[in-house]
């Protein structure tokens, strides 16, 4: 298993494995992501409907797919395994607040953590397997094991591995890995995950 691309978003910085791609003094996630969206001329109106955590996952996936030859793979050859520690707690609370009067369907949709993979799937026409785990901390063993299991299954050729956690406008973290079963480049193993996670 090899890492084709990597993206992290934290503390007002968007980076890949080599360098910081975008940074802003504006730590507040919503405005920070919006300025990235505008500067890079992304045109995807559904972005504005997403909750903060999905926006975070979505932008990270846009970065991850830069220079990736998506057309080389069939829709069902790309799978996803994501995890986080917060599930969708922030939106759960907003939704619960709305339910005191009239429950908001727009918020309810985002009270499921796997919805972020749904957003990425809709955007990139990804129809492979997708699973979501809730773990206390970034668990590289779990993610490695799951990715390995996904590759044992035909027809998986690419796996997007993600850890996306939104706690508040100041506290957020996305780490996405684009993994290929065969090929070359950095090995997807515990050591390299830890190296990338240090930034």
């Amino acid at each position: 298993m090899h890492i084709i691309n990597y993206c992290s978003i934290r503390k007002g910085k968007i980076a890949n494995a080599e360098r910081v791609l975008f940074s802003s003094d504006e730590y507040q996630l919503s405005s920070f992501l919006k300025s990235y969206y505008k500067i890079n001329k992304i045109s995807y109106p559904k972005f504005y409907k997403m909750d903060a955590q999905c926006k975070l996952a979505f932008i990270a996936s846009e970065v991850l797919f830069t220079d990736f030859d998506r057309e080389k793979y069939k829709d069902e050859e790309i799978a996803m395994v994501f995890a986080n520690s917060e599930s969708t707690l922030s939106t759960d609370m907003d939704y619960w607040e709305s339910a005191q009067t009239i429950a908001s369907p727009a918020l309810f949709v985002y009270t499921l953590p796997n919805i972020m993979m749904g957003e990425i799937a809709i955007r990139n026409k990804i129809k492979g397997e997708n699973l979501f785990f809730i773990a206390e901390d970034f668990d590289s063993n779990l993610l490695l094991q799951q990715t390995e299991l996904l590759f044992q299954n035909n027809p998986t050729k690419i796996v997007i591995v993600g850890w996306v956690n939104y706690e508040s406008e100041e506290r957020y973290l996305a780490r996405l890995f684009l993994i290929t079963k065969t090929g070359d480049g950095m090995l997807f193993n515990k050591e390299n995950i830890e190296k990338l996670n240090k930034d």
Partner: protein
Amino acid sequence: MSRRVAITGIGVVSALGLGVDENIAALQNGWTGISSIQFLNTRLRDEFVLGEVKYSNDKLKEILNISTGKLISRTSLMAFLASREAVDMAGLNTDKLKSCAFISGTTVGGMDLTEQIKDFYSEKDLAEIISLHSSGDSTEKTADFLGAGGFSTTYSTACSSAANAIMLGGRLIKSGKVDRVIAGGTDALSCFTLNGFNSLMILDRNHCRPFDISRSGLNLGEGAGYIVLEAEDVVKSKKILAYLSGWANSNDAHHQTASSSEGIGATLSMQKALGVAGINPGEITYINAHGTGTPNNDSSEAKALANVFGKNVPAYSSTKSFTGHTLGACGGVEGVFSIMSIVNQEIYAGLNFTQADEDIESKPIVAYKKTGVKHVLSNSFGFGGNNSTLIFSKI
């Protein structure tokens, strides 16, 4: 390494009753578990019908020999009952349980308790109730209750959670990583989900009518269903109920809460599962459909069935017309029904169907019958386009 995955125990709790016997008797006799709201403390009490488990939390604790004063979520209580039944049936002793994995799916976790907190400042048990809130809590509590000491994890992929838990169980055994897994799911009814599904306008105020042209939404339900999976080579003289032979998951990549009109994701997950099982579509005897009763799901699923099976769609039905939609637990609950269909060599009809959509050629079965059953396919589709299929096979 590739090993066959044997099923040696099953357990279920739903609106149809506690345990496999009560549930199957209801399915055989056409007794629905959906009724007016008795237990959920909601202001929508007079507006909807639900598939509630017909026992209060105190009563469930009494049955489990747990003191009524103990704080524990309804989600956990139902999981205890269903998983214990499965473990007892499989005859797993303390020693075997020590290394046994436990994988559970849920969407609400301890929501049933936290949402009833009246005032966060004066609630005396606040910290303890909050500690029961996470999805993982019911998994950990149940693993402890059973004494299952192996790998344990929680799936939260909406309504396909339990199916995905069972799928992971199958894979862990097939690939030789573990010998035994208890897998399934549990979800209690909560105001959180009732209000949410109401806001999406996909609830029927009357009894749901899966696949019927007049259908107008789903009924929510609750329950738990667990399956004991063992590698065939470690099951000695024990009675094997059936095999878990196929599984697959795919994304519909269409919409967050709606299925594509052509049923793309559902078609893919069924085709991939048939591939894993190594069987032809024509070999499936019965399909326990996802069949929620919403106009969108049933139309999309029926089209997916036509995509996979052509003009020869096997007998299919939705048992959600009995239990309501048990959300994260439905893959477990309906997995147990699918296995019993093989064990008893019988197929269960859904309720409240009279006429199919004009553009759908197939019809679900409307009468329970005894028949030779070889392979059963069970679908579970979740929000986020998360579609899963399991295939169970006769020994």
